[in-house]
């Protein structure tokens, strides 16, 4: 016991105060005494390993671990879960966008003038509010601006008074037209 204590004392650096050395000695002494007591009373039996492993377990362990690591690495390189989850939805959205670009947009763009012309010439049979809303929904701002300031639209401002009167009276009944004329 004394030998062990002397060894511990030799390991103490000069920075430690003498009062602290006493504390260290006391703790070590107590622990070592307890350990010796324990060794003598309890741990005399020979140690043996009661646990087993399946046959050849360690022989195949490296292969299984490396395969597992490769699998984990592959999983890491795949896109994240949310993108994988959203993939069908994104595909569907892309298809709609493609159809819109290839079919719907050209039809609207190229047939817009025809629609407008039909609407202006066939004013007696056209539901104006419906035509107005349909046209507005299909016309972009630029198209609208061009239409307003184009020569064709200027021609409308030079229309003769009879046509204007017919246009203005299209939504009136006979009584209203009569009162307007009288005024």
């Amino acid at each position, binding site marked *: 016991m004394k030998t062990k204590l002397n060894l511990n004392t030799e390991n103490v650096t000069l920075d430690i105060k003498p009062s602290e050395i006493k504390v260290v000695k006391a*703790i070590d002494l107590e*622990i070592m005494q*307890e*350990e010796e007591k*324990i060794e003598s*009373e*309890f*741990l005399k*039996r020979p*140690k*043996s*390993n*009661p*646990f*087993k*492993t*399946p046959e050849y*377990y*360690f022989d195949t*362990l*490296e292969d*299984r*671990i*490396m395969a*597992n*690591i490769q699998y*984990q690495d592959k999983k890491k390189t795949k896109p994240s879960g949310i993108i994988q989850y959203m993939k069908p939805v994104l595909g569907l959205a892309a298809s709609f966008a493609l159809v819109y670009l290839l079919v719907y947009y050209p039809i609207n763009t190229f047939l817009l003038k025809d629609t407008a012309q039909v609407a202006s010439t066939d004013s007696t049979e056209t539901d104006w509010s419906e035509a107005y809303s349909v046209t507005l929904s299909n016309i972009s701002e630029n198209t609208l601006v061009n239409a307003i300031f184009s020569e064709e639209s200027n021609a409308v401002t030079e229309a003769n008074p009879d046509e204007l009167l017919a246009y203005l009276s299209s939504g009136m009944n006979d009584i209203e037209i009569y009162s307007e004329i009288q005024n």
Partner: protein
Amino acid sequence: MYPNVLRMTTDQQILDSLKDASTRELAFRYLVSKYKERLYWHIRKIVMNHDDTDDVLQNTFIKIWNGMDSFRGDSSLFTWLYRIATNESITFLNQRKRKSLSSLTEETQYLADNLEGDEYFDGDEWQILLQKAIATLPEKQRLVFNMKYFDEIKYEDMSAILETSVGALKASYHHAVRKVEDFIRMNEDKIEP
């Protein structure tokens, strides 16, 4: 078996080979080969059951593989590997505890059941009693007891693995042995002579 890494006899040589992308995988395989058994038995004594040990060991090596770049060499490779294995084992037991167990008594019962239900346990009655006694210990004391009593790891190394002072480890071991001794004394009469 490892033609390109035959020179990897020391941990430092393994670490050097792990840094090179061309030898990384082979070096890791060598590392697994070198430490698989020691880590297995360390984990096995904590979680007790073979199947659970296999799961924890796999996770441990995956963590080691993923964390290789973060190993700075402040501690020895052996210490670092043991620390990861210990943390994985404790995490595993805590997950089990959160799922179904709430107290130390239940955890002890779980570990004891785990032991008796494990076809890869071949101990006699005294060894079963010893393992049951170890299972009654609080987590830290159980770790210290296993590492000191079975693995005979030095307190200095244990201190680096568990990040605890040597004095505290000695005290833990002392308390652990006393509790194991008491448990065995109280239950020894149940063992048939």
